């Protein structure tokens, strides 16, 4: 009996030691997606360890609830979630099994990033129905594609880190200031380069680009998916091709994990160009941090549109001659 008691005491000590060790080091941040992870990295820098559950390359709506994520959440000091039901299919079961009371909603270790975002595309109650596809009843969750929303989320991450780790608050604040300074500067650059293309009509695969289009005044006239989450059907594509030809749409934006057959089909019928863009930092190599990710997307769009504008002018003059 004595041995058992001693053993159990040892085990208990070990556990408490392990628990203590996990507290001592860096602030352990776990995020559901890579975009928020990139922001947390900007603000926490070397005072934090950031892990994203969803890989930047995969569809954030469908992530496997792998057991290793339970372990990551179990050890998290701060857990940040995109919200708006983006992660509803895989996150709740992980959080429930993580048995980490620090990261439960309402605690300082839990941050819902969508709070404070001006959410768009909230379906009308009458249309909040699965007949409309796999809709998000609280609105479009792809808000991080708009850099100003990234700024709002960064603000909240900074505030929360200050709350959890007040000693390093100044450090986080200065990182945040540095980040927003770079962001502000970049933002005006981005707006400038996209200025000539304001109002350009585009088509996307999934309803992921609404916030981005609003910020940079692009005009999304339709999606390849007939309804969110429903794969393109021939009749819908036929309809879309007609509309694109009618309205002179020359750009199709698709996320990097999408199939490319139907976009290519539509492109062939309309003479539009397909542009594959990441929706998460790291979705394509060299876009690991948030600003270079937005930068990449904008440069790609600008270079494609400026290539097209020559053609467009040519077409216009052709029409005028007629």
């Amino acid at each position, binding site marked *: 009996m004595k041995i058992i008691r001693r053993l159990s005491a040892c085990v208990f000590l070990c556990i408490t030691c392990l628990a203590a060790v996990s507290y001592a080091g860096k602030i352990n941040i776990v995020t559901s997606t890579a975009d928020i992870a990139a922001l947390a990295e900007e603000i926490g820098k070397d005072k934090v360890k950031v892990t994203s559950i969803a890989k930047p*390359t995969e*569809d954030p709506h*469908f992530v496997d609830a792998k057991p290793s994520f339970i372990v990551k959440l179990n050890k998290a000091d701060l857990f940040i979630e995109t919200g708006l039901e983006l992660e509803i299919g895989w996150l709740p079961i992980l959080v429930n099994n993580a048995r980490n009371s620090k990261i439960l909603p309402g605690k300082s270790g839990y941050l819902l990033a969508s709070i*404070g975002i001006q959410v768009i595309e909230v379906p009308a109650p009458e249309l909040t129905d699965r007949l409309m596809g796999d809709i998000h*009843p609280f609105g479009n969750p792809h808000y991080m594609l708009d850099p100003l929303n990234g700024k709002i989320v960064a603000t909240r991450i900074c505030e929360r880190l200050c709350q959890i780790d007040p000693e390093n608050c100044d450090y986080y604040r200065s990182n945040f200031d540095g980040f927003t*300074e770079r962001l502000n500067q970049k933002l005006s650059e981005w707006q400038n380069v996209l200025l000539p293309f304001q109002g350009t009509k585009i088509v996307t695969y999934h309803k992921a680009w609404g916030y981005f289009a609003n910020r940079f005044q692009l005009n999304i006239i339709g999606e390849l998916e007939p309804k969110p*989450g429903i794969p393109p059907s021939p009749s819908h594509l036929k309809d879309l091709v007609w509309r694109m030809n009618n309205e002179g749409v020359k750009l199709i934006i698709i996320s990097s994990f999408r*199939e490319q057959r139907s976009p290519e089909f539509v492109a062939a019928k309309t003479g539009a160009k397909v542009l594959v863009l990441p929706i998460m930092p790291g979705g394509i190599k060299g876009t690991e941090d948030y600003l270079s990710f937005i930068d990449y997307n904008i440069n790609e769009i600008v270079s494609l549109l400026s290539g097209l504008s020559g053609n467009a002018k040519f077409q216009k003059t052709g029409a005028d001659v007629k």
Partner: protein
Amino acid sequence: MKYIPFFVFICLLFAGNHMSSVFAENDVRMNKDDFNALMNQLQGMKTLIEEMKQDYNSRLDKMQEKIAALEKEKAQLTEKISPSPNVSEKPKSIKGEYVKKEEFEEVMKQLHDTEKHLEDMELRYNAREEEEQDNIAATQFIPDSAPEKWSPTQPITLWSAGRNYMDISFDGLFSAGASTDEDVQSLFGGGHDPNQRGFTLQQLETTLEGTVDPYFRGVANILFQLDDEGESFLEVEEAYLTSLSLPLNLQVKAGTFLTEFGRFNETHPHSWDFIDQPLVNNRFFGADGLRNPGARFSWLAPTENYTELFIAVQDSQGETAHSFRSHEDMFGRESMETDVHNLGDMLYTPRVVTAFELTDEQTLMLGSSASFGPNSTGGDQDTIIYGIDMFWKWKSKTAEAGFPFVTWQTEVMGRRFEAGEEEEHGLSNDVFHNWGAYSQINWGFKKRWVAGFRADYVDGLEEVFVEEHEEEGHEEEEGNHHHGDGLGFERVRLSPNITFFPTEFSKIRLQYNYDNILGDDRTEHSVFLQFEFLLGSHGAHKF
């Protein structure tokens, strides 16, 4: 007191005739408490926003003051730098003004910073205000709808999207098909397997789940079913709570639940990859799997890779504890009435699972489980069922909607059954060992399409008891919807299938079973089509 029913009746008559106009006020009074509470909430929110606004305004004022001051300074400085509009005078005192210029730049930078800060604040404030306004809009919606005139013919709405504290889902699972064996139930032993040639309602599952309070989550699965005679029946499959915030990585689950033994036992028919149960699960755990009221403790090891230990303590009796005190006749022994005398008469199921991330795209899970408990063939006869399980999954790094993927799942189980002596049939104490296994591969080869293949094996029960077992099985089936494992023979089954998922809320599956009943020297073929729909919001599934 006698008059009350009469009075109520009169009231109802009235209400039925023209309640909307005359009794409209009454309706409001019924909801007045709620209404007031809501109005209070709304008021609270409004004051909150007002406070925020004031706060913001005061800060804004301060900022503006600062800006004004700075602008003044700036103006003074510019005056100093260029006291008169005449530019030609400037070079006169370059040296003296040079320092001032730096100062000016400093101030300009400060001003710029302040402006930016203000801009950020505005952004934040606007975002918050937006949010609060949304809240108000959401709250205001209730007072508007509350005084709406209710009439008895209207359906009562208990919840609406976003405001209920419970996720409700309803799953309908059906199959249609035929088999070369006209007694379909002797081939498909599972409680949710196809039970006849033609159509089978495999299950209607209602799942209620949600957070009870900050300490517990609750889940209930209530099943409706039709047996092969068309009789409806209801089954409480699971109802349990799990703890949310126990210390030391512990978790408790209590209620009635499917035992965490291997991978298959704790899953529900709607998440199965095949239309039927594996043979070995059916043989050892019976038609509905191993489940009973009880409690389960688990501990997540504080290691780098996932390792979890489980121990479940459950009742050991009833038809959902098939190899234990099931009150079914086993191995020719008539079941005896047994009682629980001590803790040893409960059903104990320890389990350990561990997972490895082989690469970014591959995960391997290994587990082993055992169940210990008494059986009902004698006073102190015990059963042990032990098993090992393996699950491997590959999913593409650039998966769209979770496709493409490949999974491979295998379970091997053994059973040690101590059978007591029975004088009537001249049977002495004996120990029977049996084993079985299944292995299945699923390949999501294209978005929405999954191809599967499963191989099943179970060994034969002792020859002498097979026929008896079968006979009794048939007798039992009369008036009993749970058709147990009707065949005690050694058996190999191969099941290829293909599934199409229009969305994650529906599926259509076609499966063929090649059934080689070695012990009986016959081969049976079955083809079934399965279809499923899922309403409401259903919780995520375990990996």
